[in-house]
């Protein structure tokens, strides 16, 4: 039971570099999310997707891009990395959303440091 898998687990980037955080889920969930967690803070929503081909901004989308070409994959792209993007990134998926309430399942996280 893989669930939600994120790669890499750790990464150090230099200012101005770019990278893609990978997220894949094998539960056939329609809803997928990217959150970031800064030290001592709760998780904040970056982007979300309600199905393949559909993405939307969350609370803190600046500096990031996403795509959802398949149900399974939801990569997060950082262009021109900045120190403010140093954080732990969590991908999550959910079988339902909208009016139907259910919990989200999280990956193990990617710890990103921008220096």
């Amino acid at each position, binding site marked *: 039971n893989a669930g939600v898998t994120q790669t890499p687990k750790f990464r150090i980037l230099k200012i101005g570099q770019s990278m893609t955080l990978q997220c894949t889920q094998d539960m056939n969930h329609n809803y997928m*999310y990217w959150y970031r967690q800064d030290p*001592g803070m*709760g*998780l904040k929503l970056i982007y*979300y997707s309600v199905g393949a081909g559909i993405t939307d901004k969350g609370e803190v989308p600046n500096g990031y891009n996403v795509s959802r070409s398949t149900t399974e994959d939801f990569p997060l792209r950082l262009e021109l990395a900045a120190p403010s993007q140093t954080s732990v990134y*969590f991908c999550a998926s959910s079988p339902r959303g909208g009016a139907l309430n259910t919990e*989200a399942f999280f990956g193990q*996280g990617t710890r990103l440091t921008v220096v």
Partner: protein
Amino acid sequence: DQQVKQNSPSLSVQEGRISILNCDYTNSMFDYFLWYKKYPAEGPTFLISISSIKDKNEDGRFTVFLNKSAKHLSLHIVPSQPGDSAVYFCAAKRRGGADGLTFGKGTHLIIQP
């Protein structure tokens, strides 16, 4: 503007006693509330949830209480065990919203032997 607030950054409880974690919210559009548990270097894992049409939900040692008029919920863990030591996040979902969960900052629960 924090819509979900956990005002206690940490809580220390003796093993075997009751742990009570509190959460307040400000947005009246929230209609579904969840508690997640997180160990270091792991992702959050779902613990228990409650819909706004209920005031209590129980699952084994875990009970969540919801007071809608006070916009307050609490998580009770009885009895507390060493494996319960973790950070607990309160989260809320908007009615009809597809845009994920709004999280509190978390409470670090420490169970002392």
